[in-house]
């Protein structure tokens, strides 16, 4: 009897180990390991070869020869274009995060205050657009914002303007596109947070004579801090590396790091330089990602 149970226990331990190992190994191999390769190639030299870079380690005279090349980073620091691109990307991410918060917060608040059955419907309405194609939704804005597009036609018909406005291929168009695409990512965590609030807290504070705005600033807003952090990180981090929206709506005018990286990689075939760009972006995002991860872990541990 005892033997049987011991064997079963070993069996269970064995099973547990597999359950942990399979997803961990998959993600290690296809998510974490690639970053090490980016690190490696960022220190390689571009070459006309397949693959188009030099090897870091080479065998020469039966000894390893380590060849580390810092040229990519020197090159990046010397050309102001790259610095500008990084700064533009950060600025763009910060502003669009703020805009998303500004629009998303009242929307999330509205959903969280609705009847439970209505909440489901409203949430579905928020999510539905993001289940259709992201690319196609950005594409829709081209037709709207073009100089002879829907918006300009409407404005001219209304007599608001007599000359078509140039919106497409400007930063304004990029902001519209980003806010449009990332708004649901802001609303969802905010809603998830706000809906947990005990409404009686606000009622209590109003009972105590607080005006609505006051009770909002003193109670609801601070309590929803976790939701704000989560939503902001879900918008800010990916937007720093955004490529599709600036490419389609910003035209040649928008200089952002995602586009620069893409061009170095696909147009110039300079893989080491693209890797260096990615590496720096990764370093910039390390802190916000860590922040996000910690928040996630906290949410995970809660209510367990």
């Amino acid at each position, binding site marked *: 009897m005892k033997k049987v149970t011991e064997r079963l226990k070993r069996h269970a331990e064995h099973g547990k180990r597999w*359950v*942990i190992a*399979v*997803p*961990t190994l*998959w*993600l290690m191999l*296809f*998510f*974490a390991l*690639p970053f090490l*390769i*980016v690190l490696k*190639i960022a220190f390689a030299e571009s070459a006309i070869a397949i*693959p188009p870079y030099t090897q870091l380690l080479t065998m020469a005279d039966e000894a390893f020869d380590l060849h580390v090349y810092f040229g990519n980073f020197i090159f990046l620091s010397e050309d102001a274009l790259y610095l500008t691109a990084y700064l533009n990307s950060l600025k763009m991410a910060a502003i669009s995060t703020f805009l998303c918060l500004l*629009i*998303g917060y*009242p*929307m999330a*608040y*509205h*959903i969280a205050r609705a009847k439970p059955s209505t909440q*489901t419907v409203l949430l579905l*309405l928020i999510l*539905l*657009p993001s*289940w*259709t*194609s992201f690319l*196609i*939704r950005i*594409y*829709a*804005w*081209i*037709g709207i914002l073009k100089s*002879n597009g*829907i918006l300009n*036609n409407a404005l001219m018909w209304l007599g608001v303007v007599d000359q078509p406005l140039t919106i497409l291929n400007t930063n304004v168009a990029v902001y519209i596109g980003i806010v*449009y695409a990332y*708004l649901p990512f802001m609303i969802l965590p905010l809603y998830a947070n706000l809906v947990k609030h005990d409404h009686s807290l606000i009622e209590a504070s109003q009972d105590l004579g607080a005006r609505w705005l006051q009770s*909002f600033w003193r109670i609801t807003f601070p309590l929803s801090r976790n939701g704000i952090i989560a939503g902001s990180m879900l918008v800010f*981090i*990916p937007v*720093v*590396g955004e*490529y599709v929206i600036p*490419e*389609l709506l910003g035209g040649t005018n928008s200089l952002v790091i995602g586009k620069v*990286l893409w061009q170095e*990689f*696909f147009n110039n075939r300079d*893989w080491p330089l693209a890797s260096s760009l990615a590496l720096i*972006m*990764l370093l910039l*995002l390390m802190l916000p990602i860590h922040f*996000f*991860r910690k928040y996630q872990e906290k949410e*995970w541990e809660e*209510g367990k």
Partner: protein
Amino acid sequence: MKPPIRFSSVMFWFGMAFLYLPMLSLVIYSFNSSRLVTVWAGWSTKWYGELFRDEGLMAAVWRSLEVAFWSANTAVCLGVLASVALTRFGRFRGRSMLHSLVAAPLVMPDVIIGLSLLLLFVSMTDVLGWPHQRGLFTIWIAHATFGTAYATVVISSRLKELDRSFVEAAMDLGATPVKAFVQVTLPIIMPALVSAWLLAFTLSLDDVVIASFVSGPGATTLPIEVFSSVRLGVSPKINALATLIILIVSLVTLVAWWLSRRKLKRDKFARS
């Protein structure tokens, strides 16, 4: 409470208009007979015909669906395992690492994931001679990887709130832990598995950046195809395609919502 409700309601409906008007414009202009997308020249369904006659695009649709199907399957399987590990095993070595590996892909910019995965595949070919060629197979790996992260979030949040006594009751009645998981836990969390699968599926169908990096010759997916056509300017065919996608997504959502509501009502009726 009155004034704020009104303010947030106004913002809400303004936001909804912002989300839906562009999609509405796509639908309307897909029926425009003019090639110039913004000049209205009467109703027509000819672009739908052209869409279905475009063999390149249609082939890309099937390729994308295939990749999305297998990516979603893989993502849900890996997501179930990761969720069980994170929510059911308590503390174990490597738990914090698994957390990071699941959380980071959620926010990692696509260009970084795409570039790094491509470099991995190239190095693997270099060292191991495998994969010989990049294509749908490498796209599947890439999509399954970030799909796993999203699937884990959906599934683990459901598992976390699932009352442990269900599994304990099953074991108490004689089921081994594996049996209890298959016969009790999985059926109970099935809705979460379905939404995780759909999420991974739509994310895969939607990805253009990562696929552009890791795909190879002959493996153009629908988003890659759409992207290259969109870069050249607006095309009514794309409007027709967009309309079909919106239609399908709306129908699936509507049916899912209706089914869940009907169940809720039935249970309520039975109790009273």
